[in-house]
């Protein structure tokens, strides 16, 4: 579980939460999304949908859904997973993240609450110990027939594939913006003020199709869309 240590080595321990920010001067890249296109067609005539966006807070996405009369929930799970208070050890003394505490603080919604969940690239960057518990919770908060969109890098993307935030700018069009992780300045135990800026989130693993099918095995159906940018889009239905 070296990834946990690596992630936390970048951060100072403290009580204040980190925040994700767009990389300075980073350009927004536009990409077509077949998965989003299919989702958009399904909600075209729908009213008052309940949508959960698990990426960094996106004013564009909030505007997109509220303008169509839907309710949107925003919850940045990746940033939440960097909370130093989650760090614990397993029976062998390896550093892991406490998934119970994580799910006690995050994704706290009634069962069968959402029509649509945008996972974006969360599973690729989320710590191993949280992936399955989070997908399990997402199953329970989705309505039967509800849809979830997730993106997975292929091996060809390479280990340094940047983590992006996603803005919905069209029925099948996304803007991608590279994000970095920022920690606020704070006083350390000696009273000295520390600040730190890390490079961002690191790709934790590459899922193959079988892993993905296994991850979403409790869902009713799963559909893959292979994109040109070494990303597989996955649309699952509960």
């Amino acid at each position, binding site marked *: 579980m070296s990834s946990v240590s690596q992630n936390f080595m970048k951060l100072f321990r403290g009580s204040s939460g980190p*925040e994700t*920010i*767009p990389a300075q001067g980073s350009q927004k890249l536009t990409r077509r999304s077949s998965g989003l296109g299919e989702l958009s067609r399904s909600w075209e005539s729908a009213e008052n949908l309940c949508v959960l966006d698990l990426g960094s*807070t996106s*004013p564009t996405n*909030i*505007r997109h*859904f*509220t303008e169509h*009369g839907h*309710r*949107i*929930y*925003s*919850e*940045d799970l990746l940033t*939440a997973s960097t909370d130093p208070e989650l760090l614990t050890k397993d029976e062998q003394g390896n550093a892991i993240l406490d998934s119970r505490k994580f799910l006690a603080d995050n994704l706290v919604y009634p069962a069968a609450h959402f029509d649509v969940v945008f996972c974006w690239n969360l599973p690729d960057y989320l710590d191993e110990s949280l992936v399955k518990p989070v997908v399990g919770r997402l199953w329970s908060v989705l309505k039967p027939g509800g849809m979830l969109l997730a993106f997975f890098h292929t091996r060809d993307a390479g280990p340094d594939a940047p983590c992006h935030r996603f803005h919905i700018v069209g029925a099948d069009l996304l803007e991608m913006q590279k994000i970095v992780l920022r920690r606020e300045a704070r006083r350390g135990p000696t009273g000295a003020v520390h600040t730190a800026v890390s490079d961002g989130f690191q790709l934790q693993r590459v899922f193959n199709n079988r892993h993905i099918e296994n991850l979403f095995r409790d869902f009713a159906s799963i559909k893959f869309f292979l994109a040109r940018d070494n990303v597989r889009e996955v649309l699952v239905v509960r």
Partner: protein
Amino acid sequence: MSTPASGLAQIGKSVVIKGELSGSEDLYLDGLVEGSIALKGNSLTVGPNGQVKASIDAKAIVVQGKLDGNIQASDRVDLRKSAVVNGDITAQRISIEEGAFLKGKVDIHRADGK
């Protein structure tokens, strides 16, 4: 980053209030408040140093600081780029600057009741 207009009721950054805060005039809040805030028909601005752990009911709400609690605005909510909000937002209109952080629901209620 906007500053309070002169003549506007203000709560400075060293002020701590615990309990119910209510009034019938616009308020600029840069201190710490825990409890509830009711300014029906008026606006509330949480300044960059403001730390609020309260439910808020006002006509218009601007957040530049940190807010834990639900927001109910009869008109609009503005989250500025320095805003960190944990709570649900109900308003007729909402504006969120790039960089603002929100964990919670956004529910837009139009004037026609839809």
